[in-house]
């Protein structure tokens, strides 16, 4: 490169981001194609039904289509009589995890009410019936509360688990001291610390967090920090700046003054964060959140500033659907 002529260009090239994620979640389509290659590694789904199509609404249609197909496959499986009592297969991945205090040396069963514990060097994997897998990281303690065709429920007391679920929404639940994580399809990582606080990061699909009538919907690429007694935190993008995260953290901890920092620092990737704030701020400040959100993601037709300020739930849901949260909103009971 001619330095005298191209140095500014070279500087700009050097400043280009080395990575940026796709605007939509590609994992479900990749997973469907993987299954076409390895039909035995996932539940039996007709892969041709999962082929992507280009359309304006494909971002929303595909996850729903996948969920519908997987629901059918899972439903057919559940219609078969159970071969044994309610339990999940558990196997050691490293070290010596324990099931009900007994060292796990090979494949075994975790029965309802049973505890799985890992120490600093052990890991384990659970097979969640026919609907998914959970891997349990070191220093974790969890219990299988119950498992049935309509409700698979774990309690994560402390530690970290990675869940990958291919079931219809709201069939797999993980209770933590701070909130209940409700699977809406796909994959996430959940950590609970010794104080009961949790960190949820969704890597594919959607997860809802609920506690005390408060709910957060966390899609792929977002995370959420929740403290005991405070209800689900406000989700934010995993790529959010430290300043933005800190402002959210202060706001969730009750510092209403942090809202101005949240709004000031919110960027294009923070629309879902602002959408959650619509129900977490006072009516007096809701208009400010509306203005910022509308600047990032124009309000859909029929959604007005006045309606949002007055707390119109239908308008808020409609805007959430526009933001890609239709799976979480539609899956509400």
């Amino acid at each position, binding site marked *: *490169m001619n330095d005298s002529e191209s140095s500014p260009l070279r500087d700009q090239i050097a400043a280009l981001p080395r990575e940026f994620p796709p605007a939509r979640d590609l994992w479900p389509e990749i997973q469907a194609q993987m299954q076409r290659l390895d039909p035995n590694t996932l539940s039996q789904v007709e892969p041709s039904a999962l082929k992507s199509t280009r359309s304006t609404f494909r971002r929303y249609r595909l996850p729903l289509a996948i969920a519908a197909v997987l629901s059918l496959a899972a439903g057919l499986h559940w219609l078969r009589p159970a071969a044994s009592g309610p339990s999940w297969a558990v196997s050691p991945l490293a070290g010596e995890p324990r099931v009900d205090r007994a060292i796990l040396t090979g494949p075994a069963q975790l029965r309802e009410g049973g505890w799985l514990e890992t120490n600093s060097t052990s890991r384990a994997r659970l097979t969640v019936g026919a609907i998914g897998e959970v891997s349990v990281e070191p220093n974790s303690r969890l219990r299988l509360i119950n498992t049935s065709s309509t409700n698979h429920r774990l309690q994560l007391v402390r530690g970290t688990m990675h869940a990958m679920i291919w079931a219809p929404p709201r069939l797999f639940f993980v209770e933590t001291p701070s909130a209940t994580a409700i699977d809406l399809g796909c994959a996430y990582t959940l950590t609970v610390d010794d104080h009961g606080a949790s960190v949820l990061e969704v890597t594919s699909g959607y997860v809802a967090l609920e506690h005390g009538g408060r709910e957060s919907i966390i899609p792929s690429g977002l995370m959420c920090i929740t403290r005991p007694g405070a209800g689900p935190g406000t989700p934010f993008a995993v790529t959010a700046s430290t300043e933005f995260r800190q402002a959210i953290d202060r706001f969730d901890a009750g510092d209403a003054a942090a809202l101005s920092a949240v709004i000031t620092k919110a960027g*294009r990737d923070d629309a879902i964060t602002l959408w959650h704030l619509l129900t977490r701020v006072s009516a007096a400040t809701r208009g400010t959140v509306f203005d910022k959100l509308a600047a990032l993601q124009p309000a859909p037709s029929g959604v007005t500033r006045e309606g949002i300020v007055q707390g119109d739930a239908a308008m808020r849901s409609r805007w959430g659907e526009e933001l890609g949260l239709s799976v979480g909103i539609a899956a509400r009971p």
Partner: protein
Amino acid sequence: MTALCQHEPLLLNRPVVDADDESALIRRACQRDQQAFAQLYHRHVGRVHALCRRMAADIPHAEELTQAVFVKLWEKLGLFRGESTFGTWLHRLTVNTVLTDFRSTRRREARVFGTDDPAALETPSSPASAGLRLDLEQAISGLPPRARVIFVLHDVEGYTHEEIAALLELQTGTTKAQLHRARQLLQEALR
């Protein structure tokens, strides 16, 4: 375990979860562990997609290419011998996948190796989206296809002319000329 409560500043700065190291994930993925593969995907999708986006200059096509890269990775992961880093290996796989795709159909072949129309810069084919450095990204997107691929591989990704020439089955003189032209067009577009 580190406490997450009480505004611990570290929480906001550190990774949420200490994931498996990459070699362990690769080993598990080689054994057809989809969860491990999903973690590899989430670690690398941003880098793969960035490369596909810049080479393809078309968002839907870049998404299709990104998918194709990871499906191919699922097929070929067993061939990874650790002779380079996984990231480097995946990068090569991405470039090869994109170039193979470009060659595979006449439509895409025309997109990459068609007439180098300087007017393309005046009408960028695909505006950059969220969060990108719009001017330069748009200008790269608007480069004539062959010049764009050579520019991205050389100036952005650090390939040598010899490597690019081998990949594209061209002479190094041609790649140098195309690169020179791409830089000129970019500088004009960015004035």
